[in-house]
């Protein structure tokens, strides 16, 4: 959906910086992710994508700048608070609870809030069972429900991690390289699930290297380079932008480039 009309942004990253020793992973990064869209976040290795995710979800504290979610600042919240606000996130190295069953994994993820006394109740009330089954069916893991998560294949674990975020009914889902090490069938399955969830109103921000996946799935793509935002816009325009090509390929293709309508430049590379 190409659009030059301003959309409401759900997550705003404002001038965020983060350095590790001498390496500036994020260097005054400013960008926004639009509500209701499937936002892609791409950039060459080392551009700071995962660091940005970590800052956005509270796993790292930035040295400067702030992150806003639906207008509220969430910069220094701890990861569980961030999760509580409705921001769910997957990891590059899939993390699940290996010694618990698939069902138990899902139940842990669905506990949000509630006082202590509620915790003494059975961990799967009928309502929760329904929801769990729903989510299991949605991702296609029903048959493996009572298996130990550690015994699942890598792709199945990725689906499980995905399911664990879904079950918590988040407002936005941040997916960190969901296509990594995954076969095409599963990838298509995943993509279709993302579209379905997006149709129900969940916003996505997806970090990926697989260009086909990103261009085919995302409504809008943001490009990062060397810790800052390079540009953002609809996928077909971004992929032709000479600045983006330069960032990835390193060749100077500036001359001959003309301003392309629909691409907003948010800061120099």
């Amino acid at each position: 959906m190409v659009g030059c009309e301003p959309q409401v942004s759900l997550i705003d990253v404002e001038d965020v910086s983060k350095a590790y020793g001498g390496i500036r992973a994020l260097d005054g990064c400013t960008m926004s992710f639009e509500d209701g869209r499937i936002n892609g976040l791409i950039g060459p290795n080392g551009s700071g994508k995962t660091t940005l995710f970590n800052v956005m979800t509270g796993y790292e504290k930035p040295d400067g700048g702030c992150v806003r979610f639906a207008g509220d600042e969430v910069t220094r919240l701890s990861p569980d608070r961030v999760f509580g606000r409705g921001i769910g996130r997957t990891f590059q190295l899939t993390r699940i609870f290996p010694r618990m069953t698939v069902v138990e994994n899902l139940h842990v993820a669905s506990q949000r809030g509630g006082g202590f006394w509620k915790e003494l109740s059975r961990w799967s009330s009928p309502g929760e069972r329904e929801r769990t089954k729903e989510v299991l069916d949605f991702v296609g893991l029903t048959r493996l429900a009572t298996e130990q998560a550690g015994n699942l294949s890598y792709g199945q674990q990725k689906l499980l991690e995905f399911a664990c975020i879904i079950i918590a009914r988040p407002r936005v889902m941040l997916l960190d390289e969901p296509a990594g090490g995954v076969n095409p069938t599963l990838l298509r399955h995943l993509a279709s699930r993302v579209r379905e969830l997006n149709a129900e109103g969940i916003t996505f921000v997806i970090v990926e290297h697989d260009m086909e996946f990103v261009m085919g799935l995302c409504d809008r793509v943001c490009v990062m380079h060397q810790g800052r935002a390079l540009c953002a816009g609809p996928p077909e325009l971004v992929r032709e932008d000479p600045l983006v090509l330069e960032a990835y390929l390193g060749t100077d293709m500036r001359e001959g480039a003309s301003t392309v309508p629909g691409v907003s430049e948010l800061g120099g590379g």
Partner: protein
Amino acid sequence: MAVAAPARDLLSPREVDPVFYDRFALSKRTRAIAWLVLGAILIAFPIVITNATAVSIGVFTMLFLLAAVGWNIFSGYSGYISIGHAVYYGFGQYTVALLILHLGIQPGAGEIAIAPLGGLVAAAVAVPVGFLVLRVRRHTFIVLTIAVMFIFQLLAFNFPSITGGSTGMNVPPPLWTGTHFTMPFYYVALGTAIVALVVSWGIRRSKFGLGLLAIRDDEDRAKGLGIKVTRAKLIALVTSAFFVGVAGALYAPFVGQVFPQFAFDPFYDLYLAVFVFVGGLGTLSGPVLGALVLGPIQKYSEIQFGATTLYLIVYGVLFVLILLLLPRGIVPSVADRYRSILASRWRRAEERRAAATAAATTAPAGSEVGYQRGGV
């Protein structure tokens, strides 16, 4: 849903919910029967067996059982291995000894009745201790729990005005004789152990317990998913401390004396750890199995060889053999074996069924993602 059933009908008519019914585990009915049978045996034991030494060993075993289940509630579920639970054991003993001394409780049933107080004091101690030790992880945690225990042991030595120092405290045992002496202790210990088991079971079934297991697997992720990890660990520790404290509180009047090195006994935790490990750490029946099997062996060897140093060597060698041969514990290993046998049988039945269906229709078998394990 007619199934070409193998020798055993795995789809019990009562629970056909494929998501929540684990068809590769023992049915609830079988498990309930097993527990009841075990309970009956344990209850009948001192009535049937009249040998005083045997029943005495039984009492110690029941106390081990109580403490093992208690220990497992914390270390088994949360994955934080504590080798310093002797702190709570010691507090249980000293509390009872001090109460008897200062309140002038006469030898008799009163001494047993105050056991819960020993547990409560131990649980109260667990709060500040927990605040200290739960800040660290894994190896540091293990050693810190030992250090804390030694602190208390040394304090017990250093305050003879309160604790009797190295001469210990006398706890006049109830003036009953023969089996009239051992039986009440046995049943109280057994009863408390049953309570502990019920609590352990309840925790395992609850959201709270699920949170603990998540902490065990990946604490940072658990935290990221909103689980209040510090609170969960602390509550588990306090609960665990209560039961271990009661074990100590019953031990004191049974044995008659409280010494710092046996109250805050570094060996004690290692016994508990081995019992629970052998049975299966983090399982419900593991501590029970471990305590019931190894407890009597440990006590018996102590009685037979305790006076000689041969005991130490034999114990150590046995210890090593057990650890190397049964690394996962009995219950998980057996459960896994059972499970894989059932699973392969079920899979073969499914394949036969799918082949029959495929012959009848042209629909591809298993179009769901994840149907074939490892195929994704």
